[in-house]
């Protein structure tokens, strides 16, 4: 039996259509950087974390570096 550490494949394959549809939409609006989807994501995260501000950045290292 194979026990992989992670299974990224499964997560993606199950939601393939949703991902591609969302990306196509971004392509059409052209807001690839700090666009509307990010704004919505930041809002969701700040709700979950119960914090006032939430800013999307390049990666976790960048978040620490900027702070």
């Amino acid at each position, binding site marked *: 039996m194979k026990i992989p550490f992670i299974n990224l*494949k499964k997560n993606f394959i199950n939601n393939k259509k949703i991902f591609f549809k969302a*990306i196509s939409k971004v*392509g059409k*609006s*052209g807001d690839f*950087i*700090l*666009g509307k989807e990010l704004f919505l994501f930041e809002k969701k995260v700040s709700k979950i974390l119960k914090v006032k501000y939430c800013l999307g950045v390049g990666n976790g290292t960048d978040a620490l*570096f900027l702070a």
Partner: protein
Amino acid sequence: MKNFLIKQYQKDIKKKISHNYLPYQFKNSSQIFKKIKLLIKNCDFTLGKEVITLENNFKKLTKTKYAFGVGSGTDAMFLSLRALDLKKGDEVITTSFTFYSTVSAIVTAGGTPVFIDIGNDLNINPDLIEKKITKKTKALLIVHWAGKVCDMEKILKISKKYKIPIIEDACHAIGASFKNKSAGSFGLSGCFSFHPLKNINVWGDGGVLCTNNKAFAKKIYLLRNHGLVSRNRCKIFGYNSRLDTIQAIVANYIFKNRLKIITKKRILNSNYLDEKLKNNKDISLPVRSDKNSKEVFHLYHIFCKKQKKLVAYLNKKGIDAKIHYPIPVHKQQAAKKYIKKGLNLVNTDRIVRKIISLPVHEYFKIKDLDFIIESINFFYKNENSIH
């Protein structure tokens, strides 16, 4: 603390003659999606196989020995300067007529920017460099603005004479050349950007750094990926600036299928506008490249009278005319503490008051360009009655 970009996208995209051509370019992304599906099978999301292909593409394009996919064009410049181990007070010579990231790369890497005036080609005036060289000068960070390569003959001479490395901000200059030698291949480091409106664009941020220097390449290799030599060994502390594989897929797609057309059409459109506008007495043109050099017109600029009024008029007509940029870096709040008394960038200050950018992307037809020309001519003929 609003994210101003969202409103800007929505406003720009509504214009008939827009700078932003992404909705056309990615109208059909099935080829890219196919590659992404393949990527899922390998799951090499960070610095994966497609990143290596892209790096090889850039080695070929620029005829350099090493290329590294990094987080952005800004990161390429930042990592280049970080690799020089700048100490407090070390100076980097550059221009003020540039996007802010050229200068922020210097400052965040620990250096002090020293601004030099530009010529009428919008690039650093090489004749003014030597006067500003001191013992503390550690690099010349030159900008190939709008896709026109600087006068590299003069700049290379200075670099050799004083043994100061050149870092090329070639973010605008993918595919550009000077006397048949590619932008990004002259200095210690050539920095390119794949921002969504660059001549190779990805679905977010991305960049690549090219070099011929082995020791420098080794350092960049470490700095971009936490200083790791292997999963369990960290040699120096570095950064997280790895180009992700999805972006590399998009960049490779553009590189293979679109770059030639993009470059060719931008040059054709720019030449067409040049030809039609050169007789307008209210317009003058920046100095263009000579025959042996290739200018790729990431931005198409003209100098004009009544700059702000003309931009407002063209915007009203649905033409996305812009000013890149109305306030030069040395006059920005961020630059205050780096400005020495008596700094006088006469030409920079003069040019920002008369420069405008017109869209020239590859999806335009001649009638779109004619509409731009007609609108400009109409403006100057009827200027007094336009409010």
